[in-house]
């Protein structure tokens, strides 16, 4: 394997053993960017000089015989809705095209303590609203397995960068599947931790009761290491949980004997691509062979999860995005006679179509006369969705289903029909509503060699068990050693 194809844990050992320098590694990944970024377009900002300077500093440290942290000197990428002090953070929106955060998100402070090489900021659907990265106000990102296809979204830039070898690791955010679905489409590992496991301070808010930051990596081992770094209570986010953070790498053991897996029958129905269903069921069979017990379960309110999500998320978005008013940061439209006209012109001119659509859905659901029928109703059904999981988890340790109902589709194929796009999120949104952790691991390909992801869902704060199941499965297969070949065009 080439350097840029290696996972972080292998590269860390190579750095420690002085087989490579961080500068060599960083140059190799930057050369890979030069080679393929024109086709993949995973990045919105590349911080080349800063990356090289950081790599040199790490090499000096290693030369002095100092110990290095896990991610130290290893190049990675950050989704462009996570605030990076002094580095432009656009959320792939024109309204934040010049926004330079004066502070770091808490996850960035935690990463910074590890001294990683940050290569830049990755593309996303504007304000994380979308599942294909086509809603970026700048450019689409292409899937490294077939550049005619979408990488998924909204963390499509992060997933595509890790898959293309233009980043060793990345951070994404997941509000309704935005880490797990692009990980699935790009054949990499992506985890949404339990709501409250990771601080959201400095993550530009989309839907605050659903958003969560998580790792996108080449394998499960890297995922556990990065979760160790970013997890934990943060005074700046009152919804981050004050609970013990275990060492997640201790969960990297190959053992699923006696473990009970639930297969929700509601996830394997209408609209599911048969090749996806077959690959995920094969994955479950493999775990059964390794000693797990498989039972069919029912999550009866699954059908209502999409509706619940597409009322709650836009309602929260309508509220959160009210801050883009042209006053304290972001763009401001010119030639407005008064304050309201200034705000209206600014938002109309600088926000994208999907963002406007969700703001309007949200404001409609929250408006007088409709609040009870839509927003309040959705909050009640949200409880039912969560209670389905509570009941199921009395009998099983994990739940397995696909991370997406299909493989990556062609760029432009679904963009004109918002509702059809929303229905694509059926496999992922219920977890966000219930706050549960989920991980997507590669489990095969369709006939065109497009990756398929298996989603493993755990109890609240039980990331350890889903990591153990994911690791056991991964080690029994070789998908995590495959690399995207940049086909298409």
């Amino acid at each position, binding site marked *: 394997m080439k350097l840029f194809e290696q996972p972080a844990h292998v590269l860390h050992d190579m750095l420690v053993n002085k087989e490579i320098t961080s500068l060599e590694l960083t140059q190799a990944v930057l050369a890979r960017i030069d080679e393929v970024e024109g086709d993949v377009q995973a990045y919105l900002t590349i911080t080349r000089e800063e990356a090289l300077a950081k790599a040199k500093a790490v090499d000096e440290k290693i030369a002095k015989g100092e110990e290095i942290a896990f991610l130290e000197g290893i190049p990675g990428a950050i989704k462009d809705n996570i605030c990076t002090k002094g580095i432009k953070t656009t959320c792939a929106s024109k309204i934040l095209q010049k926004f330079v955060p004066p502070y770091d998100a808490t996850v960035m402070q935690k990463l910074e303590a590890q001294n990683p090489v940050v290569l830049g900021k990755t593309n996303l659907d504007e304000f994380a609203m979308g599942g294909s990265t086509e809603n970026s106000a700048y450019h689409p990102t292409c899937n490294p397995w077939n550049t005619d296809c979408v990488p998924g979204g909204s963390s499509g830039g992060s997933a595509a960068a890790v898959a293309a070898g233009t980043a060793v690791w990345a951070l994404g955010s997941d509000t309704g599947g935005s880490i797990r679905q692009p990980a699935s489409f790009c054949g990499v590992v992506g985890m949404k931790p339990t709501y409250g496991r990771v601080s959201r301070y400095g993550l530009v808010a989309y839907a605050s009761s659903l958003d969560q930051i998580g790792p996108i990596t080449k394998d499960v081992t890297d995922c556990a290491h990065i979760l160790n770094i970013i997890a934990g209570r943060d005074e700046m986010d009152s919804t981050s949980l004050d609970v013990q953070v275990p060492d997640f790498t201790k969960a990297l053991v190959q053992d699923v004997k006696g473990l009970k897996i639930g297969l929700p029958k509601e996830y394997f129905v209408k609209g599911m691509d048969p090749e996806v269903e077959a690959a995920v069921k094969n994955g479950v069979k493999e775990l059964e062979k390794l000693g797990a017990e498989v039972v069919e379960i029912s999550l009866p309110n699954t059908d209502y999860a999409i509706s619940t999500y597409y009322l709650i998320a836009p309602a929260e978005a309508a509220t959160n995005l009210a801050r883009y008013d042209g006053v304290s940061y972001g763009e401001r439209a010119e030639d407005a006679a008064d304050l309201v006209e200034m705000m209206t012109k600014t938002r109309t001119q600088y926000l994208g179509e999907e963002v406007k659509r969700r703001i309007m859905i949200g404001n*409609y659901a929250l408006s007088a006369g409709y609040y009870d029928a839509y927003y309040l109703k959705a909050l009640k*059904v949200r409880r039912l969705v969560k209670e389905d999981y509570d009941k199921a988890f009395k009998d099983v340790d994990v739940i397995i289903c696909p991370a997406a109902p299909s493989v990556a589709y062609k760029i432009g194929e679904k963009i004109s029909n918002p509702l059809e796009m929303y229905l694509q999120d059926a496999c992922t949104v219920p977890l966000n509503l219930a706050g549960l952790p989920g991980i997507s691991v590669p489990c095969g390909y369709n006939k065109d060699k497009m990756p398929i992801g298996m989603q493993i869902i755990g109890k609240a704060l039980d990331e350890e068990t889903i990591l153990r199941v994911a690791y056991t499965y991964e080690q029994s297969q070789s998908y995590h050693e495959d690399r995207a070949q940049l086909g298409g065009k």
Partner: protein
Amino acid sequence: MKVTKKDMENVAVLSRLSIPADKEELYTQQLSDVLEYVDNLSAVPTDDIQPMAHVLPVSNVFREDVVKESLSRELALSNAPLKDDGYFRVPKVLED
């Protein structure tokens, strides 16, 4: 749920957005489609169900009220589209 032109105008005002005339029909149709789809919730009996705004059983998270270092005024204003003498500057709000 059929969205009327008037509903659309109202929601645009609430959203501080203006809808260009050539997009009005499309946006109204798309909003109607979404509302029609989410209407499946009306079939779910929820009379005895408490709404759940937040998944965590966490409330009233307090901390000591102590003075700490915060962003300087200059940094806090660094992204402002228009500023004046240490303040954000906006178009006139009050009538003369």
